């Protein structure tokens, strides 16, 4: 049959084409596409990862998030309680050849702070800070009260050229629209790679910047990012040789890829903890019932002993082993080993169904009750399966648990404010949290501090855990510049909020996995970012 012969020829031609043309070019298959090239449009993981290669930041994290390094800045220190001094690296050029000075930094912070029409701004990091130029390479950032997290905050805002679209542009967002960035006109940074093109839904292409000054490596001449959302399609693209690396390797394929000789895997623990929130503010909770599903006039979840018992019923090792295929680490608190502000006292809760039953009986709930666990099904690695596994474990221990999962676009609205009066709708939810600042103050502030929109505390506290001791200690920590003292305060806060109160039930820390073709390796990043500069030839 003729078509078949043609296909055979086609196969030869493809094989010829798919051999690497230039060793210094690389193609990366990614799950998530950035939403803009404008660095202040959307404070979102994929954007921050992609744009960090085009634009410098003052400071940045090492891949393991254990240390902050200088990018546009060479040094920084607090010169008094309310002033931080940054010294800029000399000789940094933008991609258009102009010099990077303090003026560009101030311009960038101003545009970020006043950004209009974006999806999620960087204002959280620019709020309450005044930038003052001392000279072309010295910058003072002044706050009203002592602010320890300054170096962390400056790992977020990217620096663009103030002359990106001519000088003295006025109007909304300094006269530069997101579209100007997306078509490349204004996408002028000073990072190791230059923006070439963005075909939406398909690819972004970056090219090495020869005049780059800074600590980052430039392992490739050209990096192409292809966006392949479907999990098996991404794996298939790697196996077929269409791409050199993929991110977010599905856990179900890890076992097989390990055996594949043409592929090597890199994985690293992330700053994201997967945990359970429990309704601690309603006297009768909508999804807590009797065992046969009738309404219950009391809310057992308000009792810390019940929360602790539920935690003990969860076989974290089984979840990690069977659901996550070994790529996760059982969690006992908010951040994994090596991160700042952890408690050294808290251990991962051991699986102890007997002890759990005893504790339940002590709390007066020896006969059990019914629950429904709600979770997203497209947000975290294997999220729906984790929810199902927890449903199984609690059901088997006398707390019959229904499982309801839904797409994130529906789930988060209901979990945050689905009930009357803008209250959280569910009683028992599965969520995850990645610490943006790299220390435990971020999850403590958002998840465990008393919900108070006016103060910006407890914004994602979907169980409404509330303890004045936690609020007080956290407040102190957030105003302590001295790292050792702050670390101790954060650890103490964690001990109370999780150890004593069981305000949330931590399940595991996510481990992210990248797969590369043989001969390459990826430096796994704790911030879950996929960037070309951390993809390097093996050895």
């Amino acid at each position: 049959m003729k078509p078949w012969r043609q296909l055979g020829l086609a196969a030869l031609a493809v094989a010829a084409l798919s051999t690497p043309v230039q060793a210094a070019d690389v193609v990366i298959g990614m799950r998530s596409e950035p939403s803009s090239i404008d660095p202040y449009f959307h404070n979102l993981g994929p954007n921050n990862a992609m744009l960090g290669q085009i634009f410098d930041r003052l400071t940045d994290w090492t891949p393991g998030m254990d240390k902050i390094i200088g990018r546009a800045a060479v040094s920084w220190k607090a010169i008094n309680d309310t002033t931080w001094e940054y010294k800029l690296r000399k000789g940094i050029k933008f991609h258009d050849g102009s010099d990077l000075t303090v003026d560009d930094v101030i311009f960038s912070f101003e545009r970020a702070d006043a950004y209009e029409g974006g999806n999620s701004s960087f204002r959280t990091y620019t709020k309450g800070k005044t930038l003052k130029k001392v000279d072309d390479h010295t910058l003072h950032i002044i706050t009203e009260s002592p602010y320890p997290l300054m170096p962390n905050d400056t790992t977020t805002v990217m620096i663009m050229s103030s002359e990106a679209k001519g000088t003295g542009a006025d109007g909304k967002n300094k006269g530069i629209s997101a579209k100007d960035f997306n078509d490349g006109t204004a996408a002028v940074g000073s990072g190791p790679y230059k923006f070439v093109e963005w075909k939406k839904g398909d690819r972004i292409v970056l090219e090495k910047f020869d005049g780059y000054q800074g600590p980052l490596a430039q392992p490739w001449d050209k990096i192409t990012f292809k966006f392949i959302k479907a999990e098996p399609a991404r794996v298939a693209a790697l196996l077929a040789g269409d791409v050199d690396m993929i991110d977010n390797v599905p856990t179900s394929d890890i076992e097989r890829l390990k055996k594949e000789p043409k592929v090597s895997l890199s994985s690293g623990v992330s700053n994201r903890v997967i945990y359970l929130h429990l309704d601690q503010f309603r006297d009768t909770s909508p999804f807590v019932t009797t065992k046969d599903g009738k309404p219950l006039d009391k809310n057992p979840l308000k009792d810390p002993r019940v929360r602790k018992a539920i935690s003990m019923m969860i076989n974290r090792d089984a979840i990690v082993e069977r659901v996550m295929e070994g790529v996760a680490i059982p969690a006992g608190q908010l951040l994994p080993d090596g991160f700042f502000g952890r408690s050294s006292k808290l251990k991962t809760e051991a699986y102890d169904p007997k002890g759990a039953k005893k504790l339940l009986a002590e709390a007066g709930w020896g006969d059990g009750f019914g629950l429904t666990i709600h979770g997203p099904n497209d947000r975290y690695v294997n999220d729906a399966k984790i929810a199902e596994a927890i449903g199984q474990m609690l059901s088997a221990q006398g707390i019959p648990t229904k499982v309801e999962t839904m797409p994130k676009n529906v789930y988060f609205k209901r979990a945050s404010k689905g009930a009357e009066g803008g209250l959280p709708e569910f009683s028992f939810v599965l969520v995850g949290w990645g610490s943006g600042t790299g220390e435990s103050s971020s999850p403590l502030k958002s998840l465990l501090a008393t919900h108070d929109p006016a103060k910006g505390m407890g914004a994602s506290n979907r169980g409404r855990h509330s303890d004045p001791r936690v609020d007080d200690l956290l407040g102190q920590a957030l105003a302590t510049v001295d790292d050792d003292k702050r670390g101790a305060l954060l650890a103490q806060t964690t001990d109370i909020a999780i150890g004593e109160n069981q305000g949330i039930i931590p399940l595991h820390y996510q481990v992210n996995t990248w797969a590369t073709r043989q001969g390459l390796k990826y430096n796994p990043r704790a911030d879950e970012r996929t960037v070309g500069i951390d993809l390097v030839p093996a050895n």
Partner: protein
Amino acid sequence: MTVAQENLEIVPRGADDAAKFEGVQTPFRRFLSDFCESKLAVLGFVVIVAITLVAIFAPVLAPTDPYDLATVSVLDGRLGPGEAMMSGVTAHLGTDGAGRDMVSAMIYGLRISLGVGIGSGVIAMLIGISVGLFSAYAGGRIDSVLMRVVDIQLSFPAILVALILLVTLGKGVDKTIIALVFVQWAYYARTIRGTALVERRREYIESAVCLGLSERRIIFRHLLPNCIAPMIVVGTMQVAHAISLEATLSFLGLGMPQTEPSLGRLISNGFEYIMSGKYWISVYPGIALLVTIVSINLVGDRLRDVLNPRLQK
């Protein structure tokens, strides 16, 4: 447009031709022997009967209850075919990621797929018949407005309409059925209207009218029975279509919830394991789905040939 699609419609244009052939054979016998000429169609019919029985008696036949979370355990997850689960039951076709026995999950999944397909088909048929008959009987402006609505509805692809509905409605058996009814009713409505219009002009209806029979009696005793043949053909094809559509929607992440997987949902759950060599999680439900849909379509196809005598030699 109306004309173009009417060409494709299954209207028993030669209903009276069929009458000519009547002799020794009763119409049903004739139909039966015609139908049985195609061995594939007979095979399809047998398979459908078997599948339906399996679906009905799922709780008796399934080795385990895949929906009882207290007995399903992740520790049993992804066992290969023939391995034993912790409870001692052998998983002949393996287990899925959540530790459900595949045999049981497929039996129950079949139940849901068939239930959703047939359930939505029956509801859509009832709505379609009511609208179609009403439209044909009322005639005039009402008829033209109703048929315009039907035309417009039919001019939009089912997948798109169902997609939008499920995006707004969310997941669940009931919601999936609503969406599937919504995309199907118009097919029935137009088919039955076409048939009814043809039948209404026939002598036996006219004589019934002359005899002074009530309208209701005419519709239900005379008009409706004559519309059954095309309804059966459209119905079979639509049920197969609905099952396939439900699977597709589940694949796109809409449709059925994860804890009550239909066959389509099982395939899409297993899809993530397909590259890792755990073929059984998606391949077996895939085969079950294919066998179901192909059988229904084989029967439907034959029915169309048999009930549409113009194509007969």
